[in-house]
């Protein structure tokens, strides 16, 4: 769990980089503004997580799914995020699948471990 409140902060350098990328070259950002954006991003993540959790619970699911998050974003008036996130997710899924296939083909030779490998792969999908 969270031991210190700073654990909820996102790294300043990464936030600064993302902000810089999304503004015109000539723009500058005050320290106070950057700190506020970083704080807002943490709160956004918490807000979306708890809203998604509530949505999942309402559908009698214990854990949230990607679908819950996308639906929550639309409900929270961030539907403009959904199309490109959906694309990112597609690519992510493809990547995971490819990785798994490579792994599986490597392990095909050792027949004894095959059953274990597939359960391990499934477990890897859902780390706590």
């Amino acid at each position, binding site marked *: 769990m969270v031991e210190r409140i700073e654990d909820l902060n996102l790294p300043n350098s990464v936030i600064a980089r993302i902000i810089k990328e999304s503004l015109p070259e000539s723009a500058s950002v*005050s320290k106070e503004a950057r700190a506020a954006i970083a704080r807002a991003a943490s709160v956004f993540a918490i807000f979306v*997580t708890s809203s998604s959790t509530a949505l999942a619970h309402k559908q009698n699911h214990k854990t949230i799914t990607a679908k819950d998050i996308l639906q929550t974003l639309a409900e929270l008036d*961030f539907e403009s995020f959904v199309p490109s996130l959906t694309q990112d*997710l597609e690519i992510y899924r493809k990547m995971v699948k490819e990785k798994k296939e490579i792994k599986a083909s490597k392990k095909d030779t050792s027949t004894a471990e095959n059953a274990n490998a597939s359960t391990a792969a499934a477990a890897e999908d*859902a*780390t706590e």
Partner: protein
Amino acid sequence: MVEPKIQPVERPPNADTVLPLSRVRTIMKSSMDTGLITNEVLFLMTKCTEMFVRHLAGEAYADAFRQQPGESLKYEHLSQLVNKSKNLEFLLQIVPEKIRVHEFQEMLRLNRSAGSDDDDSESGSESDE
């Protein structure tokens, strides 16, 4: 499969995240009662948090400097955006205006109803900051 899609954002879709997944997981866990966060969900949350940062900075900047680019983005630009955007309501207490929100709302209401000819009546509650 490979047909070109309309992209509202300038960056191509990708599976790379710049924010650290472990930190986003910590943040998510701080608000979740029941544990299990799949890798896929973690990826998606990280991506959408990155997107939110871009959105917030971009909108605040666009709002503040519609005419002349090249200015410095300041805290007040953010709080102004938060105050007027419905979907940023959850940040009202996180990025507050330097005056109090209820004063601001009071001001708005007075301006609307009274046409702002006498707003001296509320001066008693302005001395908080």
